[in-house]
């Protein structure tokens, strides 16, 4: 039987991969490749060209550095959306030095030989009118320092010695003609100092002089809530590098103004250094400054932000020397989707529940509001359980959940499969020595269990934790992890001792912990057995019953330390490291910013002068290590890297079309209208199925739902399982990160089940047998909504009287239904049993104690008997 199932799984897996045309099977799970619908390979872009740097000697001869043949690849250039992240890679570039802890915006300026990547309006085509051509003045930067050199010492004015610069650009003041006066830019023209501006020309034609923060476009800000996307990226010692570059449409950046009608480019400038003109005799300080070739060795870091050689820094990207070395990648934006009208007077209908649906719901919503024959759909995010209760109480027409929820209402509920997606363990991990990002993370259930059970020590502060003082400080120092993921840094850090997860109850956590619960090695670890390297579980979590919907913070260890700040703020150290958050979205954002939510920072508040706890700093590029549990939708939307999880021992499966399809192939439905169950044991046996696969269901009452609401829910189920399953980034389509549900192949059973539920929801049929109130008038909706304990359990019948009470004439009147003298006793006594304090106390040890002891007793008796017999026989 089992073999047949796994065979079927393999078949459906193949079918699933066929559905996702052009997407490679992602068994290594390097990036979220699931249904990357936009990624039509036709719009990838590649170019190779030679770039160099020359010095003019005093005698007029030139010295040229060896040219470098640089290749730049861009994964997608057509039909982009605002905030889409595009993979850009290069090879053959000059290795970088002085790596900044954050390469974005002005933070990335103090580096040497980086690759500057920015978005510019216009394209590089000499045949176009000037207004449509790109130029440094149309390239976006979020700060002044990235574009202008204001009040520079003449000895440092390297750009005035650029051999390629026009003579007009070699003066003391330059960049804007006429040069702004002191009334506009008070600091620009200061005697004894040189200033070179690179103004910004906005899409509406307005020119911002960029001489100070007040003369920058409105979108520009340092330290804004919305971080910059332009960066100075790092090239490794082999000349390679890659980034995820976020493109911005006119919605995100109006001044830049890129849209489906305004062509734009991504400009990639591998910084080779300024080429220098003929030096004075003797050479000036500036002549020498122009010829500098770097303060820092290639591959080094500059987290302290020390000064760099300006001639090879990214700050002078706009000099003709650097600008001529650019790669201009033309990009096009897709048509912006039609959007709902803010003045639409229809009241929205909110479905409450799972965050897993969030990315799909964003694309689906306009497909409802834009049609008069549909209702105005809204997805309201809430923990699955809370949403289900709202639905049962009639405060929401439907709930979005991922598993069978405990029923507290009396109406039957149908679960319509609505989306196939799941969770992923996403990560930011840099390889040591600035060798680039790690892209092939593999994890198993035991490693996840170690992270969740807070069994890594974090830092020396954790060493005094009772029972686990010998454990590794963080996962990257754990031999088990290092065997799976060789070559990573072994510098312990607190952020690598945890996986950022949810604080609220969620079916996602249930699935994560169910995956752990079905792994014998992981469960042996949780139950206290050391792993082969001697690491043991944090005693606070030993024998924790899994799965759980909400991960508890069970540790109690407060380190004793000499640190007065920590003495003043005694907290549970491991809880501060774990610091779970309320939404998966927050986890994704933390990963995007490489900003762990570890709350162990302890310092003096500048305002109050008192010690306080807070979040640690953002991680430095080049030494990032952070893990988090995210939704597949978010992972695809933000281009987060996702880990492959072990299924069979030795087999690692990442989230992808085929691996999700394989998991769906294993799904079983116990009862009509109920959710399907993906048994983690079957996933493990199958080997090709992704363990994080989850189905999101639209759950709604099949009886007593308001007629209008019932029609809306049925419509939603039908629309979302048909047109809502077409992959794409348009209105009503299914975004990346979801496996389409279709009426053929492996997802057919989900499709069929959804249609069945849709019909049942629409019908709201109340079978006569299920309303034993036996009211002669067929008005079940009216009575039972006020009937306090109505439903199939038959409340009006006394606990002992049996069905004969059906004929009780009083039963038809709802207000008196639970007659005070008889009916509530079974309800009351049932709950009363919970009240008695003694019954609440249960203990597994206690339950097993007597039988075990009896067994021991019998055993002892036997031994004694045998012993006696032995003694006797010896005699």
């Amino acid at each position, binding site marked *: 039987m089992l073999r047949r199932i796994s065979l079927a799984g393999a078949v459906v897996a193949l079918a699933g991969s066929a559905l996702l045309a052009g997407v490679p099977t992602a068994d290594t799970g390097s990036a979220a490749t699931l249904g990357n619908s936009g990624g039509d390979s036709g719009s990838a872009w590649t170019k190779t060209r030679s770039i160099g740097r020359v010095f003019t000697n005093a005698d007029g001869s030139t010295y040229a550095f060896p040219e470098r043949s640089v290749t730049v690849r861009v994964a997608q250039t057509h039909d982009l959306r605002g905030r889409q992240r595009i993979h850009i890679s290069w090879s053959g570039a000059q290795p970088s030095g002085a790596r900044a802890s954050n390469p974005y915006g002005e933070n990335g300026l103090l580096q040497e030989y980086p690759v500057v990547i920015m978005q510019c309006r216009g394209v590089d085509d000499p045949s176009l009118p000037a207004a449509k051509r790109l130029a440094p003045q149309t390239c976006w930067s979020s700060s002044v320092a990235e574009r202008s050199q204001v009040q520079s010492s003449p000895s440092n004015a390297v750009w005035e010695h650029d051999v390629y610069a026009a003579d007009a650009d070699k003066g003391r003041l330059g960049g804007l003609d006429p040069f702004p006066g002191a009334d506009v830019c008070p600091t620009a023209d200061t005697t004894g100092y040189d200033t070179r501006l690179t103004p910004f020309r906005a899409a509406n034609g307005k020119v911002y002089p960029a001489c100070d923060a007040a003369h920058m476009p409105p979108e520009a800000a340092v330290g804004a809530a919305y971080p910059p996307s332009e960066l100075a990226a790092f090239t490794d010692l082999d000349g390679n590098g890659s980034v995820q570059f976020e493109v911005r449409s*006119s919605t995100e950046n109006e001044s830049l103004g890129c849209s489906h009608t305004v062509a734009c480019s991504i400009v990639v400038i591998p910084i080779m250094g300024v080429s220098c003109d003929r030096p004075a005799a003797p050479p000036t300080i500036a002549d020498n400054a122009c010829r500098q070739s770097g303060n820092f060795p290639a591959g080094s870091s500059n987290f302290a932000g020390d000064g760099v050689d300006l001639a090879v820094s990214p700050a002078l990207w706009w000099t003709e020397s650097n600008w001529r070395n650019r790669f201009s990648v033309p990009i096009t934006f897709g048509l912006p989707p039609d959007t*709902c009208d803010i003045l639409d007077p229809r009241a929205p209908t909110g479905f409450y529940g799972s965050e897993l649906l969030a990315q799909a719901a964003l694309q689906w919503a306009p497909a409802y509001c834009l049609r008069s024959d549909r209702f105005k759909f809204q997805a309201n*995010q809430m923990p699955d359980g809370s949403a289900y209760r709202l639905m049962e109480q009639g405060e929401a027409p439907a709930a979005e959940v991922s598993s069978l929820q405990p029923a507290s209402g009396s109406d039957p509920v149908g679960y319509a499969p609505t989306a196939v997606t799941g969770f992923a363990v996403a990560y930011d991990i840099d390889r040591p020595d600035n060798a680039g990002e790690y892209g092939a993370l593999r994890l198993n259930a035991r490693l996840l269990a170690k992270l969740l059970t807070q069994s890594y020590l974090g830092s020396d502060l954790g060493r005094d934790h009772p029972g686990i003082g010998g454990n590794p400080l963080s996962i990257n120092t754990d031999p088990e992890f290092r065997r799976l993921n060789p070559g990573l840094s072994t510098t312990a850090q607190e952020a690598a001792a945890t996986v950022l997860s949810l604080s609220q109850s969620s079916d996602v956590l249930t699935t994560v912990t169910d995956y752990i619960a079905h792994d014998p090695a992981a469960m042996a670890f949780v139950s206290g057995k050391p792993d082969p390297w001697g690491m043991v579980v944090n005693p606070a979590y030993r024998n924790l019953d899994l799965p759980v919907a909400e991960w508890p913070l*069970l540790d109690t260890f407060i380190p004793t330390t000499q640190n007065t700040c920590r003495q003043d703020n005694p907290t549970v150290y491991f809880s501060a490291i774990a610091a779970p958050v309320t939404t998966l979205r927050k986890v994704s954002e933390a990963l995007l910013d490489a900003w762990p939510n570890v709350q162990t920072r302890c310092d003096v*508040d500048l305002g109050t002068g008192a010690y306080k706890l807070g979040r640690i700093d953002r991680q430095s590029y080049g030494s990032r290590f952070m893990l988090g549990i995210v939704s597949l939708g978010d992972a695809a939307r933000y281009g987060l890297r996702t880990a492959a999880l072990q299924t069979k021992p030795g087999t690692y499966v990442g989230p992808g079309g085929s691996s999700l399809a394989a998991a769906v192939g294993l799904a079983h439905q116990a009862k009509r209208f109920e959710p399907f169950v993906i048994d983690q044991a079957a996933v493990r046996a199958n080997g090709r199925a992704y363990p994080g696969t989850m189905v999101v269901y639209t759950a709604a009452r099949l009886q007593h739902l308001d007629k209008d609401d019932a029609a809306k829910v049925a419509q939603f189920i039908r629309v979302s399982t048909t047109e809502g399953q077409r992959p794409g980034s348009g209105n009503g389509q299914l975004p990346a990160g979801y496996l389409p549900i279709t009426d053929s192949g492996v997802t057919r059973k989900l499709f069929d089940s959804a249609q069945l539920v849709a019909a049942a929801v629409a019908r709201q049929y109340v079978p006569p047998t299920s309303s034993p109130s036996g009211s002669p008038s067929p008005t079940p909706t009216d009575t039972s909504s006020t009937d306090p304990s109505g439903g199939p359990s038959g409340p009006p019948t006394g606990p002992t009287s049996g069905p004969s009470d059906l004929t009780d004439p009083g039963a038809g009147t709802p207000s008196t239904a639970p007659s005070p003298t008889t009916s*509530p*006793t079974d309800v*009351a006594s049932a709950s009363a049993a919970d009240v008695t304090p003694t019954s609440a*106390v249960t203990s597994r040890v206690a339950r097993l104690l007597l039988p075990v002891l009896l067994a021991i007793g019998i055993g002892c008796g036997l031994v004694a008997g045998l012993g006696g017999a032995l003694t*006797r026989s010896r005699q």
Partner: protein
Amino acid sequence: MNRRRTTLTLLLTLLAVLPGITAAHATSYSQIEGSGSTWSKNIVDQWIADVTANGMAVVYSGTGSSQGRKDFANGTTDFGISEIPYQGTDEFGNADTSNGRDYAYLPIVAGGTAFTYQLKVGTTMVRNLRLSGETLAKIFTNQITDWSDPAITKDNNGRAFPALPITPVVRSDGSGTTAQFTTWLDNQYPSIWRPYFGRSGLTSYYPRKGRAIGQAGSDQVMNTIASKVGNGTIAYIEYSYPINKIAEDGKPYPVVKVLNRGGFFVEPTQYNVAVALTRAKINHDRSSQLYLTQILDGVYSFDDPRAYPLSSYSYMIIPTGADDTRMTTSKRQTLADFMFYSLCTGQTKAGDYGYSPLPLNLVQAGFEQLAKLHAADKNVVVTNRDVTRCNNPTFVAGDLSRNHLAEIAPMPADCDKVGAGPCGTDTGHNQPSTNDNTDDQGDNDGDPNDNTPGNDQDGPSGPNSTGPGEDPGGPGTTDPGSSTSIDPETGLPIGTDNTSTSSGSAIYANPTELVAEREADRRTFGVLAVGELLALVLLPGLFVGWSRRRRTGRAVR
């Protein structure tokens, strides 16, 4: 009010006929960015998700109100969200101003600052704790340090809680929640608050002392309450956090029922908040920079039995300068329409998320503030934004100043009254506590109408409210004179006509003082029990074996 509305309508109509402006199609949106309050973040995040369907992009980071005001002043954001206005000078003498940037306030949502806690009797969580304001003030100023304190026992009508130290959890970052809480402390309990704080007034940075724990952000405060070592902790936090945090027993985290001046202990449901805020004094002076800000003295002292004392509004700070360097037409349009949605339709879901919708007059005033975006830039369209089409649950047709929610707010259950109860119903369920869904255990004031639905407008139902001398009986010790029938077997009152009775699971603190559960006790007694049982089973066998060996030994000899 009516005249103002007419003028506004006239004005808007005039603007509408200006050439080149059509409502829906001329609107183009650009992303707006903001930062600030975590108090209101849960509902703001949902609004942001909602308006995505309208093509609006909004970025919001919950950095705390103080940081939100700072970011706005520094011009790095397009809006800020804060519970308190700019203070001019903050409590440390630093500037707390907009740095010359023109701005206006508009209220975005109402809510209650709740007190969530973890307190166990044995292994069971207490879910019906009640505290007076004075007790809360003393707890957060380290004057009441143990759960068995007589003041807490008195608040709970004689039910004592275990001897267990109280650990207040406060915010370590600059927080509007802290500002709201300390405003109330300073206003209501100055003699308790000021000696602790060392001065008068509010603070955004709670002066943590002694056992108290400081945590950054509302998420971390909730995590601390819910952790294994959380037993004995209590924190101030917006109501939406505890109601969405499920405890190990599968129920939401409870919140303290706070005593109001009407003599009832109430929870910050959307109803109780709405009632309380009918007494908020809103600055109606349009010429004032503090226009629309709140003065909450009347809220704190409102004697309606339903009012939750720590109710307040959260505010958005919007840039109104025509020459604001961060703003463009399309950004202003986005801000205007984002707020139009949030103040209008967005209010309908406030209750579900643990907030309370704004009354219509404040929505209307908010719209007028949004019109300042149009004043700054004539291309911003603010026409056709009609408050009456908001589906706002607080709306009372014909009178914008009335709050429907406050009018339909049910009366608290009799057992929530001072000297009565306490009610057995759980808190944290985002449901009002009424006579409908409590069972009045221990509260027997002889009112035969105990089981009729509440909402009797005359306030406390029984004329002879029970005195403090009443027997604080638990289940089964009910006054025999009561008209409520008691099931002889279960000792529970029967005939309560409701569906959501959670009577069975209520925890009544035992009047006999217990020590809180201690791990060491369990282990010690467990080992002892095992030892005894082992002895019980093994000793007879061993004795038999021993005696037999002796016998055989003797026989051999």
